[in-house]
Structures are given as C-alpha cells and as structure tokens.
C-alpha cells in the first residue's frame, strides 16, 4: 500500500465510489428490507439476471446499457408479478425460465455485436471504482424517491405486505402497490449493477437485512440498520477492492458475510447472557 487512505480522497473517482457505496446502501437498504420481509429474494434474483438481456440488446442497438437493463428488468418484474397472480404457471418455474432467458439473450446479443465486446466482468461482478456522475445522479434520485415513498406510505406498504388478503378485503390498492414496489425493486437492482454486479447484487439486498433482522424485528429499524451495515461493508469492500485490485462486488459481499458472521456470534452471546440473567434472577 503506497498511498494513505486520506490521500485517496483527492481523486474524484474515489469520492465517486464512496458516494456510490453510500447511495447503494440507502437504495438496497430500503428495497432489500421489503424484499426480505416479503420473501421475494428469488424473484429479485430473477429480475437481476433478466436485466442482463436488456444490457445485451441495448449494446447491440448502440443504446445505453443501463437504460436497456432498466426497461428489461421492469418489464420482467411486472411480468413475474402478473404471471404469479393471474396464470396457472407456477411462480418459481416462471422465474427460473426468465432468469436463464435473460442471461442467454444478453450473451447472444453481446457476441453478435460487431467490434469489441464490453467488459463483461464489470457487469457481472461490478466496478465501483469506475462509477460516473450520471450513475450517481440516477442513484441519488432513486434513493430520494424510495425514501419519500416509503416514508409517505409506510403503513400502507406494511399493511399490504404483511397480509395481502386482509388488505384486499379492505379495498386497499393492493395490485397498484405490488406493481409499483416490484418496479422500484427492479430499478434498485439495475442501478446497483454498476456497484456490485449482476451476480452479487442480490447479496446487497439480503445480507445487511438478514444481519439487521438478528437484532430487530421492526421493519423500520431493519431499514436503518441495514443501511448502516451496507455503508460499513461497502466502504470496507471498496478499500480492499482498490488496494488489491479485486472486483468490488466480490470484496463488498465478502465484507457483508464477515459482518453477518460477527453479528451472529454477538447475537448468540447476547442470548446466552440473557438466559444466564434469567436463571440468576
């Protein structure tokens, strides 16, 4: 390590990646809590991989890959939600098909595009150190929208997510909110592909939440705690990524798992201390 961490801050690429880590933590913290609470991890994995098809097609057509991924992932998110509520195809099978179809389309279109193939590695594993200002503005807009949306409709979101049938019996706008929220999940996934990559983005949406869930069962607390865990994990991962030249997705996710392991150990100790206290009293 030839450089001091603080010297790094004078480089704009580094401050950009710090900001990206912060915004990824906020967006994934909010959307991920919804995903984990509603047990939508597999759906989210399907949306993530389907978005690769959008990247490939956009690349082939000479368009912005992120825009292609956004369109593709929102359409597949709405498609999954529609299939699972209307048709007789089993939801998990539908997700499995979409999952691999997206990857296949992405690879086909990238390979039939003449000229240089894009750096596949950066889409698959993330490259937080190359995040540009457009990415940051998009992520900031999404973070703001998610925060306002969840704060404004917190009780209604919880009401519908907790007991959909009860909400429908009370004429709550269940379908509207399900489609809105799954679209927001899709957007969150797409905008975070730059940071951690397609293969690992699902971890950013689940590991901090599962860690937070060890200590609290309150939806709101899980959001705030997973944002905090996201910031700690992603900045640690970012530093390791920079100094050892490893794709950022891998280092960030590894940091998350490490935090989860430590948290789990602390939680076990807390439970044991609790039992001892109860036995003592």
């Amino acid at each position, binding site marked *: 390590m030839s450089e001091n961490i603080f010297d790094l801050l004078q480089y704009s690429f580094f401050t950009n990646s710090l900001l990206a880590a912060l915004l990824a933590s906020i967006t994934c913290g909010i959307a991920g809590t919804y995903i984990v609470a509603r047990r939508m991890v597999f759906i989210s994995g399907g949306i993530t991989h389907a978005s690769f098809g959008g990247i490939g097609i956009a690349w082939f057509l000479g368009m912005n890959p992120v825009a292609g991924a956004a369109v593709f992932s929102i359409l597949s998110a709405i498609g999954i939600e529609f299939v699972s509520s209307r048709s007789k195809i089993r939801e998990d099978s539908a997700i499995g098909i979409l999952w691999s179809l997206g990857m296949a389309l992405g690879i086909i279109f990238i390979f039939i595009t003449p000229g240089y193939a894009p750096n596949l590695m950066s889409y698959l594993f993330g490259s937080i150190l190359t995040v540009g200002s457009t990415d940051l503005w998009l992520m900031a807009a999404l973070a703001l929208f998610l925060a306002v949306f969840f704060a404004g409709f917190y009780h209604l979101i*919880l009401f519908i997510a907790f007991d959909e049938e009860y909400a*429908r019996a009370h004429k709550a706008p269940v379908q509207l909110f399900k489609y809105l929220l799954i679209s927001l999940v899709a957007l969150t996934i797409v905008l975070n592909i730059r940071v951690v990559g397609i293969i690992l983005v699902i971890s950013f949406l689940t590991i901090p939440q599962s860690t937070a869930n060890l200590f609290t069962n309150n*939806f709101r607390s899980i959001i705030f705690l997973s944002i905090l865990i996201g910031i700690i994990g992603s900045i640690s991962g970012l530093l390791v990524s920079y100094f050892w030249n490893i794709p950022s997705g891998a280092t960030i996710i590894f940091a998350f798992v490490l935090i989860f392991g430590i948290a789990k150990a602390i939680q076990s100790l807390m439970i044991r201390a609790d039992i001892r206290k109860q036995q003592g009293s």
Partner: protein
Amino acid sequence: MAEILELRDISAGYDGDMVLKGINLTIADLDFIGVIGPNGGGKTTLVKLILGLIKPMHGSIVFHDPGERNLIGYLPQVSQTDKKFPITVLEVVLSGLMSVKQGFRAYTRSDRDKAMEILGLMGIKHLHRKSIGDLSGGQMQRVYLGRAIIANPKLLILDEPNTFVDNKFEHDLYALLGELNKTMAILMVSHDVGTITSYVKTIACVNRNLHYHRSNIITQSQLAAYNCPIQLITHGEVPHTVLGEHIHTHHHE
C-alpha cells in the same frame, strides 16, 4: 333490524369448480350467525365471497350501505399469515384502521391509545412491542381479533377463531364476542359445533348449499335433513343444551 348485506342466489368456486350453489343469506345488524359444515363444504369460500376476495360466478351480493368504509372486520385463519414478518403487535392492531384511513394519513395519538386499550381488553397489552412471530398461536389470534375490531366494523367475520386458542382464552373469547355483539353483527365459521351453538343466535349449515336455521338449537336429525354431515368433537365440559340426542357421539372419518 336494518340489513347489512344480502347474498342473492349466489354460486361460486375456483377455476370453474363450483363450491357453492344457489346461496341466499341476509345478514342484519346485531346478528350472530354460526357457520358450520364439513371440511371442503365451502365455509371459507362463503367468507371470501362476503369479503369480496372472490367474485360470484352467478348471483349478486347487495350491500345496503355501499359507502360505508369500515363495514367488515375480519379474523383470518392464523395459519394464513407469515409468522416471520417483521411487524410489531401494536402495528398489526393499528393496521385495522387502514380501512378508514385509506392509507394516506399517519396514526394519531388517539389511534395508538385505542389500540393499546384493545390489547388490554385481550389481556396482551404487555406484548405490544413484540414481533408477531414471537407470539403463541393463541396470542396471535388475539392480535388479529384486535385488528378486526379496532375500526368498529358493522360486521365481524371470524374464520375458525378457536383453532389455536387455549381453554381459558376460548371462554374469554366467547364472552368478548357476546359483548361485541351488542354493537356489531358477527358471522363465525367453526368446526367446533358443540361449543359455538351455545353462543350464536342462528346457524347456517354450509355444504355446497346453505341452509339457514333460525335458532341456535339444532338436532342431529335436522343436520341430516340439511345435508350437513359434521364431525362432532366434544372435549370435556361442552354445554349440553344445544345439540340433540347425539351430543356425545364421536364421528370420525
């Protein structure tokens, strides 16, 4: 007494499979209807129809005050909800107000006081900060009942409320329902015929068809005439006055 809703010649089912046929039922203010019938006979389908969760294939449901927002409070079967969902007991009870709040306004101080009062009524005030998953089946049942009644509905629908309930709370529950029945109509689905008939006012036997029995006293032969074969499960001290001569018969499939 004023009518709340009316089911007119309704047929309903799933995917073309008809579960209920030619159903007529009127629910009026302060009714207390016990819905009994064999498993798979359509009791839950009837509940879903009234709640608007499924549409009838034929016939219509007429609401006599369609503008009323907090018309129905609903206690689902406990097994239907996600027990690991990160939500607190207080939040679940408060969410019963969503029907009147339309989701846009936050809960007020008085909403919270009301929720705490209801939790007190259920004897689980001390659990209000707990996560729903930390509760026993009986405690959960009380929380859901709290959610169902917090908005003062005109009609309370209970689907198998006594499934996970311990004997002590079962007694309290029926006492509470008797109290609630002074201000709202109740429709209660139960498999435990022997017990419910001593609390309800009238009985609806549901087995593809619906036979309405304008009394809470029903005999085995009447049940047979209604084509309503039900398993009589008697545990311990069951009120004896309500069923006919076969009260102690154990029917098993």
